[in-house]
């Protein structure tokens, strides 16, 4: 008759040597939690949450600064390319018919809120309808502004779910009014939670900060004379005033295109290679050419994931290895403490293989416990990192994928670490014990 289920399960568990077993489990849990925790954080920072539909997206960049003057040349795939474009250049680039979709945008610092309340700072992004489809922004209430509203620069806004919660208590606010920069603006849509990490549609400045809570038609950028809040590359002197800024070669806008096929990519690259900037540039600047960067290349050129997280992954991998070596020591000590019992088993007819597998099974049991323990530990590590890096806006969370990875890693490490101790136990000789009895 088969042994009861719990008895079979018991073969995997630590048995009476619980202090050593507890050390094995704790050590394994610690090593795996550090390893998996930092690897998961690296993945988050590296843009693992960026949706798959971003594959056909390309950042449009123009050759602007001489290679030797580019402070970030070590990181860029093509030094001298700049992702922040001037208004005249973006306007000229938008005339191309090659891309399937194009999304010009610019971030600005505005002030406003409910008409009845004092104004508060509001980060806004001026963009077009295509921005929403290209970056997968879904709406929970209402819809996008219409093409007519977009071209006319109508006083309409789309707000984030968070701002909707703060201002309207989370109810459907479509049709409500906000007062922004002294203009009454109607809410036409409320975005579903939209928090890309990193904020990949604009990697020019503080790209781990939250997405802008207010989306405004691009045509209003001129009407509102909104001051750009993201990086401004001030390449040339220009008379003061918003119109002068719009006419200058100073960069403050992003442009993304969606190119559906390799042929489109090739054609658009050729178009950019021959592109000449439409605003007069000072003589020290490069005056011809540009390129497109796929999202992966753009992330890499901006140092994403950051080298800080790469450093921590390297250290955590070394730490995991140190823990695995430790595990070998613990398992040797633990197994050796019942070597007499094993010798008797051998004398009673147990084969080497059965002894080996018995111990490997125990290693797996310990590994499973260590893996399960490592899940809350890795979660704690991520929570600690959220507190230590408040600028990253609580982006680290334990995912199901990381949890499975933790258990898998723990099982793998326990087998690797337990191989030699199990082999050693299987080599114990029965004859010696019998002879001495």
């Amino acid at each position, binding site marked *: 008759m088969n042994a009861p289920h719990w008895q079979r399960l018991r073969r995997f568990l630590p048995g009476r040597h619980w202090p*050593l077993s507890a*050390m094995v489990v704790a*050590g394994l849990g*610690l090593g795996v939690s*550090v390893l998996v925790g930092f690897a998961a954080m690296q993945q988050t920072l590296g843009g693992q949450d960026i949706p798959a539909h971003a594959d056909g997206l390309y950042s449009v960049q123009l050759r602007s*600064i*001489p290679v*030797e*003057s580019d*402070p970030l040349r070590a*990181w860029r795939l093509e030094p001298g390319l700049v992702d922040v474009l001037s208004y005249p250049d973006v306007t000229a680039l938008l005339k191309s018919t090659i891309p399937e979709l194009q999304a010009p945008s610019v971030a600005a*610092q505005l*002030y*406003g809120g409910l008409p009845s309340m*004092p*104004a*508060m*700072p509001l980060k806004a992004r001026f963009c077009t309808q295509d921005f929403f489809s290209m970056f997968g922004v879904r709406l929970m209430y209402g819809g996008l502004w219409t093409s007519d509203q977009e071209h006319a620069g109508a006083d309409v806004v789309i707000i984030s779910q968070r701002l909707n919660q703060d201002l309207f208590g989370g109810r459907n606010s479509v049709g409500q009014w906000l007062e922004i*920069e*002294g*203009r009454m603006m109607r809410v036409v849509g409320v975005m579903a939670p939209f928090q890309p990490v990193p904020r990949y549609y604009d990697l020019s400045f*503080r790209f781990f900060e939250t997405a802008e809570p207010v989306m405004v038609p691009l045509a209003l950028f001129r009407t509102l*004379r909104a*001051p*750009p*809040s*993201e*990086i*401004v590359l001030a*390449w*040339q*002197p*220009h008379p*003061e*005033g*918003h119109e002068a*800024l719009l006419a200058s070669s100073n960069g403050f806008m992003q442009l993304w295109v969606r190119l559906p096929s390799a042929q489109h990519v090739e054609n658009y690259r050729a178009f950019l290679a021959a592109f000449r900037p439409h605003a007069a540039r*000072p003589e*020290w600047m490069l005056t011809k050419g540009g390129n497109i960067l796929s999202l992966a290349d753009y992330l890499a050129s901006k140092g994403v994931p950051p*080298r*800080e997280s790469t*450093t921590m992954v*390297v*250290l955590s991998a*070394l*730490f995991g290895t*140190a823990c695995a*070596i*430790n595990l*070998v020591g613990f398992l*040797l*000590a633990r197994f*050796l*403490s019942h070597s007499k019992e094993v010798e008797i088993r051998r004398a009673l007819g147990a084969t080497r293989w059965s002894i080996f597998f018995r111990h490997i099974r125990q290693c797996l049991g310990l590994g499973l416990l260590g893996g399960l323990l490592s899940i809350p530990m890795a979660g704690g590590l991520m929570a*600690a*990192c959220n507190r*230590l*890096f*408040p*600028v990253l806006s609580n982006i680290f969370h334990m995912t199901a994928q990381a949890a499975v990875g933790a258990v898998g890693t723990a099982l793998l490490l326990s087998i690797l670490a337990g191989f030699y101790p199990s082999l050693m136990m299987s080599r114990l000789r029965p004859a010696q014990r019998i002879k001495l009895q």
Partner: protein
Amino acid sequence: MHLLPILKAISRRKVSATLIGLEVAFSVVILLNALTMSKFYASAALPPPHVDWTNRWVVTVGHHGPARLGLDVAARANQDLEFLRSLPWVHHAGAVSVVPLGEMRSVVALWSAERPGDVVTARVVEALGDFQQGLGMQRVEAFPGQNAGKEQRGVLVSRALSERLFPGRDSLGQHLQLSTSAEHLAVAGLVDPLEQYPGLSHVGHVVFRAGLPGDLTQWSYVLHTRHAPLGQDWQDLQRGMTSLYPHRVIREEALQAVAHTAGGIARGMVAVLLLVMGLVLLVSCLGVVSITSFSVAERTQQIGIRRALGATRGDIVRLFLTENLLLIIPGMVLGSLGALALARVQSQDLVVEPLSLLEWVLCLGLVSALGQLSALVPALKAAQVPPVAATRSP
């Protein structure tokens, strides 16, 4: 104590020896690397010693509404500064387009007048009034921009930028050109920036220029106060500034708090690296305990024979500690080599100052001391083995 028999004993126990050696080697690699990186980030996380943060405050004003479009920025800022100076608790007041801490949004290109082809990027801070006192910066020379009629187009540059533009030379009086200005500007003074970020030298490229640009809608006043302002003082400030111009949002913050926010990533990295260093030391200590315990358990009979032949308990403890030290030393050598190799890989994209010899030695000393302390626990246990154990079966 003769080392040869101990070395022979070690060679017979290759597994324990290898495990302890590897354990120590990995710990040393992690420890040395984490220490190097923490030194790097600590220098960015800690406020530079030359800045006096006491009673320094930042008042940021954001102007909104249609009226902001016709704002006379210079007149508005001068009127505000006059009001701020009239407050009895304000000692100095200045205005800056942006507080030069952390990432700044505006980047300009510039070059020295004598080498126009050598273009450098930098961050520009436009400033008015007693901004140096407000920011607690130490200036090397006076800022002529404040001395009306003398040299209105002078700029202050950070030391790092001065060294980049005019290497090995005195930059005072030299001329440079900003991409945003059609004229040459004389270097009127050097300042040390409010933050330090070794390895990313361009972050330390800062130019202070007189006057606020006319199209600003948000800027900051930097105050040096006679004492820490009370709640009533801030209310007076808010009321007074709002009466001068109602359409604005006013926010006060200690300058040190702004610096604290700017150094957040670096500080977080130091904390994480310290945590990793603590954990690795703990794990390696536990590792040495477990592996030495394994070794003691394996050699119980041998210890009994030694005791039966006259070895004292002290001899047994010394034997295990010496054995442990002989295993730790190659581990430390191996770990040091690994740390050097890792540092070499990392130096490809990060300019990190290597550890000094003293720091290196102290780090290895700490590892060996903790390793010995950890081995002491099983060594003392081994010393308790009675001579009669020699007669027991293994």
